[in-house]
């Protein structure tokens, strides 16, 4: 089967800090792949490298058959990869509506259907439509960040810790949304600290430790794996 995304032997560094060491992984069409790992393992770095925000020092990233390793971010977005970055990163002094419009920056067609979808999924965003994004609560900002990323109608969605700092109820809402997107056929890469939640939606799982893939496999199998159970599920 052809992979939507394949990361081949990718390394990346911040100056002399080597944050990724020859990482390889792939995502098949319609698959939800989770990446878990401790703080500082390199998960966000991997997301940045895929989106072209940080250059890979070696290795290749392929997306739908093209080598996108050296592409600028805007071209990667145009090709269909959207990212919800770690820590939401909404445009704090733009309104909620303008944040959504920014998500559709490259689109030339009517964006109203996607705005409607966002408001249906998260009704609170419609209420706060004209409010500055910076004045939203953390959870509301997370909903906005997710909706904003979906405005580009991506084919591959990268989610970097969408549950960070959310109340259990909101975590559930966010994961329900991820599950629904997955069921609708979107390919997803989900970075999570919350391994239990990640395992509940993901088809496959990679464990990243100090910049390297330590384990990989089917979500159900890894749930039984003693290493995952001990370290990441804390059972």
């Amino acid at each position: 089967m052809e992979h939507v995304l394949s990361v081949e032997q990718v390394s990346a560094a911040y100056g002399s800090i080597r944050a990724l060491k020859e990482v390889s992984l792939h995502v098949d069409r319609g698959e939800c792949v989770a990446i878990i790992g401790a703080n500082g393992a390199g998960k966000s770095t991997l997301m940045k490298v895929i989106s072209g925000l940080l250059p890979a020092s070696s290795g290749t990233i392929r997306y739908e058959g093209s080598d996108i390793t050296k592409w600028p971010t805007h071209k990667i977005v145009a090709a269909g990869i959207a990212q919800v970055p770690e820590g939401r990163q909404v445009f704090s002094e733009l309104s909620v509506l303008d944040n959504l419009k920014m998500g559709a920056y490259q689109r030339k067609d009517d964006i109203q259907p996607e705005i409607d979808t966002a408001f249906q999924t998260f009704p609170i965003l419609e209420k706060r439509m004209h409010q500055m994004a910076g004045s939203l609560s953390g959870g509301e900002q997370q909903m906005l960040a997710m909706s904003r990323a979906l405005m580009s109608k991506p084919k591959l969605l990268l989610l970097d810790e969408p549950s960070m700092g959310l109340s259990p109820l909101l975590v559930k809402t966010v994961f329900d949304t991820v599950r629904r997107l997955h069921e609708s056929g979107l390919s997803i890469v989900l970075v999570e600290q919350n391994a239990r939640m990640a395992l509940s939606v993901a088809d496959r799982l990679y464990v990243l430790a100090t910049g390297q893939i330590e384990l990989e496999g089917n979500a159900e199998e890894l749930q039984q794996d003693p290493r995952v159970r001990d370290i990441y599920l804390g059972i």
Partner: protein
Amino acid sequence: MNLFLQICIQGLMLGSMYAILTLGYNIIYSTMGMAHYAQGDIMMVGAFFALDFFVTMDLPIYVAIPLSVICNVLVMLVIERLAYRPLYSRSRTLLLLCTIGVSTVLRNAAQLIWGTQSFNFPTIFPGDIIHIGEVYLVPQNLWILGVGVVMMLLLNLFMKKTKVGRAMQAVSMNRSAAALMGVNMQTITMITYGMSAGMATLAGVMLAPIVKVYSTMGVSIGAKVMISAVVGGMGSMPGAILGGLLVGLVEALGGMYISTTFKEAYPVVLLLVVLLNRPQGILGRKKVVKV
């Protein structure tokens, strides 16, 4: 009282042009995170283009102004490409030093091309002095003030209502998030510098009949632009307008009621007073000022 009103209008007229220049300086500051030291010199080059087209070639003003804007925007884009772009990924200090270098190069190039003397620039808004009661109004001043206000409104509309304007705001708030939305940074960079140079050219043309055109005209005006930016609050759009108008007013009123000899010093006094009371500028947010 009448004299006071007249001087205020004179000050606001000057101030509106400082405001336009400061807005141009601030869009570069907030979108690129860089203090564009050469802003005054870019204005000077624009004024010389206008001098060539309007005076030397005798083209009608409505042709001369757009031509000057186009030429000066091209000059700015070439500078961006050759001097600034290679440094974006390096330290900000290097970029600041580079803009200082560009400022010197522009001044020297202008001296080579146009010489070191001052050139008179005929008024582009002729008309008899208007009397309203005891107040005498120079039409040119009112026109310039009007042009300033229209430009501010247009810029505001552009930033709030257009896709590109919104993208520029997004870039200034969060650069990497804007990239993740698919904003092409190179395009936004060029639009930012282009707009800034275009606005500087217009301000240069408006100021030319008042201050004359000469190769170092950008030095004192450039200094006032930076003072306006800091007084209003670095990067703030309303701050640029407030700062520019205040600097113009202080300069005109000080020149009238104290002495014209120290005309250049009054804005500096304003700067000190503001910095001592509100280091982030009148409308600025508390944030470490990156220079």
